[in-house]
């Protein structure tokens, strides 16, 4: 049965952000025929816009559905999202300003651009670009799952509404580029903050306080068993190391106007972590409220069902709009990031060496459509579980670019071919680990001798990657293999680079 009140509020908010998405093309107007204008918003975003953009980008609709679903279904282990987002910002605080500076200095738009310039290696850059695209695609598909679940919660069945939502998204991303999700993120995050604030105050009051909520949680779900400690810690660490290797995270960082904006944001973004922790608690509230998992959506049904039970219809519609719009922002940024990678590091590199700036930008716009169409078809025709499995693999894959990108920001000691072989080993080993668990868990039961240490497969695979890269570097250097030319210099990594006019930047590429 369709909940018309909720649906009306939902549609009004959805229309509002649609209009904003198209108007965004005129915001801080630039020449959208240039890739850094379309794909990085002209690199003019200040502290506040970057805060909203990165927050809206990293904390996706899928996060808002999946994290409480994990807490609801599996208990305390689902809370690893909190330590994960606690440690990620101190790490990124030292790392990403360096990437920002060197990228601005040399006109890099993607992480693969940096890797090519730093290591003078086309195969390594291709590996980084391909990994980024591969890891991003299922992530976009999962944003659709977020929309699907909230539509179902309002009684909307069938695929058509989902298709309409995605066509609208694709259209304004095509026209406005990164400006669209940046502008929409302002609205999206405001309504998310309101929703969560109301939820964590009103629902516990309804359920008789936090004491009652936690008392209703079965003992095994309330605390970690000591056997789960390594899993909890490695999930947090591995996810934190991987997060800013994702192309959409890097796109968010590189679009900011100044190096200082990036640094400042790492102290401000924890506000979103607080929000995420509150959302994770909704999983326990759903248990206390006696919510049953749905046949179609399983544990992912927990939060929408909780909202339907606890909120008046109009506010439920508001909350569902928050989640659905929360899917549009990251989906848009992810498709832009994948399009930037494909256009810059595959199309321009291998197919059209002499393509003009306008052609490059036009190609990226088209690719952003193709990427989203692919994600939509995948969700419509393949079981949702495939997308979830692939996203799990995506995390295992993307972390394999960490040695080339993150270590490359500090030292060029690792040899380019050692990095490439290390990457291949990490990809193969990580994929094997995930497959061996039948995708049921990203935890691999590592056993060394008689000593068992179950931990996050991505982290184990990247450790293997690093060991291989280090050992081979030592051998390749001893054999005097050519290490290529580094087009960056030490000073490029620490400097505030004044913004150049868009044309000047494009000319420097």
């Amino acid at each position, binding site marked *: 049965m369709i909940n018309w009140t909720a649906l009306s509020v939902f549609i009004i908010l959805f229309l509002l952000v649609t209009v904003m998405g198209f108007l965004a093309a005129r915001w801080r107007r630039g020449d959208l025929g240039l890739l850094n204008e379309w794909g990085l918003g002209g690199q003019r975003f200040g502290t506040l816009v970057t805060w909203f953009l990165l927050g809206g980008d990293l904390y996706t609709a899928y996060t808002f559905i999946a994290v409480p679903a994990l807490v609801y279904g599996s208990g305390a282990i689902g809370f690893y999202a909190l330590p994960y987002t606690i440690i990620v910002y101190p790490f990124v605080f030292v790392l990403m300003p360096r990437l920002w500076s060197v990228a601005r200095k040399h006109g890099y738009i993607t992480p693969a651009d940096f890797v090519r310039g730093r290591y003078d290696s086309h195969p390594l850059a291709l590996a980084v670009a391909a990994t980024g695209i591969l890891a991003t695609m299922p992530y976009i598909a999962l944003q659709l799952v977020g929309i699907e679940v909230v539509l179902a919660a309002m009684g909307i069945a069938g695929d058509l509404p989902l298709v309409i939502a995605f066509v609208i998204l694709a259209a304004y991303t095509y026209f406005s580029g990164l400006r669209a999700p940046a502008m929409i993120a302002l609205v999206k995050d405001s309504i998310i903050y309101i929703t969560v604030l109301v939820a964590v105050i009103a629902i516990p009051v309804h359920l008789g*306080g936090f004491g009652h909520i936690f008392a209703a949680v079965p003992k095994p779900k309330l605390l*970690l068993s000591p056997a789960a400690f390594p899993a909890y810690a490695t999930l947090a660490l591995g996810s934190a190391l991987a997060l800013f290797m994702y192309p959409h995270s890097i796109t968010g960082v590189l679009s900011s106007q100044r190096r200082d904006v990036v640094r400042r944001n790492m102290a401000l973004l924890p506000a979103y972590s607080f929000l995420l*922790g509150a959302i994770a608690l909704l999983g326990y509230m759903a248990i206390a409220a006696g919510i049953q998992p749905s046949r179609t959506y399983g544990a992912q049904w927990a939060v929408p069902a909780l909202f339907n039970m606890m909120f008046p219809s109009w506010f439920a519609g508001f909350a569902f709009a928050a989640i659905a719009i929360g899917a549009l922002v990251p989906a848009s940024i992810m498709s832009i990031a994948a399009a930037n990678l494909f256009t810059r590091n595959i199309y321009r590199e291998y197919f059209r060496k002499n393509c003009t700036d306008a052609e490059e930008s036009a190609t990226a716009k088209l690719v952003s459509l193709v990427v989203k169409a692919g994600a939509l078809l995948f969700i419509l025709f393949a079981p949702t579980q495939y997308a979830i499995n692939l996203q799990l693999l995506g995390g295992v894959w993307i972390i394999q670019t960490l040695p080339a990108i993150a270590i490359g920001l500090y030292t060029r000691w690792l040899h380019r071919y050692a990095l490439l072989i290390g990457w291949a080993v990490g990809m193969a080993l990580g994929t094997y680990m995930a497959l061996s668990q039948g995708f049921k868990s990203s935890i691999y039961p590592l056993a060394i001798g008689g000593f068992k240490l179950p931990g996050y497969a991505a982290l184990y695979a990247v450790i293997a990657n690093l060991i291989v890269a280090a050992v081979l570097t030592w051998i390749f250097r001893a054999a005097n293999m050519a290490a290529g030319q580094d087009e960056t210099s030490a000073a490029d990594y620490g400097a505030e680079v004044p913004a150049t006019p868009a044309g000047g930047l494009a000319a420097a590429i």
Partner: protein
Amino acid sequence: MNRWIYVLLLFPFIAMLWVPTYSAVAPTLGGIPFFFWYQFLWVIISGLITAFVYRMTPHD
């Protein structure tokens, strides 16, 4: 500027990855078990540490 200030950024890692130090129900705070409110507290502490390091290092 003293580069040692960056060492402060390691504290959130130590606190959060050392799970046995906080996997406990007691003491509860307003009905919330220690495991949960302690991690929420670290969201704030970690943010403050990063903000402090930002303030103490060159910025504009």
